């Protein structure tokens, strides 16, 4: 139960294509801040998709937060993701027709289980609190199309963090930021993960960030699928 991620003999491929993932074993303790890297095309995003339950493993067992994803139906996996996982994309994280506030509160409105995790705090209040902590408290009413890239990524982080999910998955969220903002963003992200006791899986090409994490995973080392 203390494992956030427990992967055994995972194999995954898109449709009838070649194997993209072949991971005999990969485990991650709860509360870890993991740095996942690998060359482009090595399957990082695919692995995150499997962990988030968006993609279904072809073979093997994937246990996330104690839940065997393979035993869940598609709808249950969607619900599981909504309730327990926060996801941050590399860029274009936000839905353009929603305000900053609406973007942040999306997971909470999507699933009652996630809303329940607000511990009685109001949806708006929780969003405002998080936004304040990430220094974007004054942007809540703005349309997202008027934000800088750095601001957008912080909004995305707020959305991933709202309702304090146990697992935060971030797919190169800093690659579009300059160096100072990158560190800034990471500091804030770490701080919030710590506050919530969340496990973080952070994907990046940028090895210079590696030192800030408690664990480093080289995907090519654990993924035996040949490319």
């Amino acid at each position, binding site marked *: 139960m203390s494992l956030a991620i427990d992967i055994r003999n995972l194999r995954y491929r*898109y*449709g009838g294509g070649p194997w993209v993932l072949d991971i005999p074993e990969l485990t991650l303790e709860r509360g870890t801040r993991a740095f996942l890297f690998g060359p482009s095309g090595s399957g990082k*995003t*695919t692995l*995150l*998709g499997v962990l*988030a339950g*968006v*993609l279904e493993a072809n073979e093997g067992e994937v246990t996330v937060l104690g839940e065997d994803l393979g035993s869940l139906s*598609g*709808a249950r996996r*969607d*619900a599981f*993701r*909504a*309730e327990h996982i926060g*996801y941050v*994309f590399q860029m*274009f*994280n*936000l*839905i*353009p*027709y*929603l305000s900053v506030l*609406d973007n942040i509160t*999306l*997971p909470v*409105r*999507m*699933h009652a289980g*996630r809303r329940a995790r607000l511990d009685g705090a109001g949806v708006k209040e929780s969003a405002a609190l998080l936004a304040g902590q990430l220094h974007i408290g004054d942007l809540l009413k703005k349309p997202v199309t008027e934000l800088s890239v750095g601001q957008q990524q912080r909004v995305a982080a707020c*959305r991933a963090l709202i309702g304090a999910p146990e697992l935060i998955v971030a*797919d190169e969220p800093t690659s579009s930021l300059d160096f100072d903002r990158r560190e800034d963003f990471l500091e804030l992200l770490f701080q919030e993960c710590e506050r919530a006791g969340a496990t973080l899986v952070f994907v990046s090409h940028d090895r210079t960030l590696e030192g800030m994490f408690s664990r480093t995973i080289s995907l090519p080392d654990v993924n035996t699928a040949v490319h």
Partner: protein
Amino acid sequence: MLVLDLALKSLRNRAFSTSLTVGSIALSVALLIGVENVRVGMRESFSNTISQTDLIVGTKGGTIQLLLYSVFGMGAPTENVSWEAYRQWAEHPAVAWTIPYSLGDSHRGFRVIGTNDDFYRHYRYRGGQEIALAEGRASENLYDVTLGADVASELNYTMGDEIAVTHGIGEVGFLVHDHMPFTVVGVLAKTFTPVDRAIYVTLEGMEAIHWEGGAPPASDDGHVHDEEAEAASVDNGHVHDEEDEEVADDDGHADDDHAHEVETEVAAADDGHVHSEADLSIEDVEVTQVTSFFVGTTDRRDVLMLQREINDFEDEPMMAVIPGVALNEMWRSLGYAETGLRLVTIFVVMVGLLGMLVSLYTSLDERRREMAILRAVGAGPRRIVALLVLESVCLAAAGALAGLALVYVLLSVGQSIVEAQVGLFIPIRPPGFVELLFMGAVVTAGFLMGFVPALKAYRTALHDGLTVRV
């Protein structure tokens, strides 16, 4: 509710394409409902061509034929009804009033109808409106004519004009009796019914037109025959001028028999027939027959009984029809035109909805990122489907409502204009069953069509996972 909120905001975000789509659906729905309204209006105005007449009576034949010649001034019966028979029914205790008609002649393409005071007194149309005179008075003397509104305006006739009337409804009948001229004594107000396209003379005047050569028959056996008329005219000692030829209008159709008849008549006239039309007055003419007559009963409950009695009349072959029933029957026989019109408008609506489908479908590529984000925050593929179907339904519903509103706006602006211009009264009513049916069908079609982009998005959502490839 989240999905509805997302659908609405997403549509609002694409305001331009949304309003184009809603606009095109609205226009097509407005066309569909508008045509339906016009159709109902036309149908009502058609069934109201005449009103308060309980029976139309003529010689035995087809119901629609009787309606055509007695109400719409089209065609002619093979036989007439004798004056005696007409009077017999006119005096029937169940009969309150009658309007006798004597048809069969035309003037430059307009029907000439012989009738009497009863026409001006009892004729009703469009829910009880009376015949009114725009100018002058009703025909009462032998050579009086009263013109329908269209006749006066199209032929540019005014009060006091002298006009000639040919025998036979065909245009080939161009014989002009300029020594037997009819004088315009009145013009009827516009009714937007076939009344506008007819020329009214007295029953006696109509008899006079039938006299070949323009003189009354010598014999008084009650029937006017060509030979008798000509024979009579020879004795009159009046030299017949050469006939003027009047160029025929081109909108009538020729009746070969009449053409032949007229030619011989012209030949006879050219031979120098003599006759006198001089100072004949209405008392000198005996009316021998009518073509048909309208009947109003004293008690409407007697209508069916009276109809049966007339149909069973043994002295002459006669037939009575109830105008409302006959008009409806006739309208139904024109039903294929309605169906065709309706089909066309339904196709227009389909085109409008297809436009929506195209716009939703092409927007999907730009929205793959959005779908991936929704997936990432926990939306299942079914929510993605629901979102797109809901967008489609919203577009269709907004289009349907806007279309309905457009119809009411157009109706309230155009109703009186249309009524004044073409006499078609299109009633403004709250949306009825048909409108709701149409709108329901449009929304349902929108719902079904929404599945096309939705299922595509569903497949991409399942396949793409969280990678969004451009």
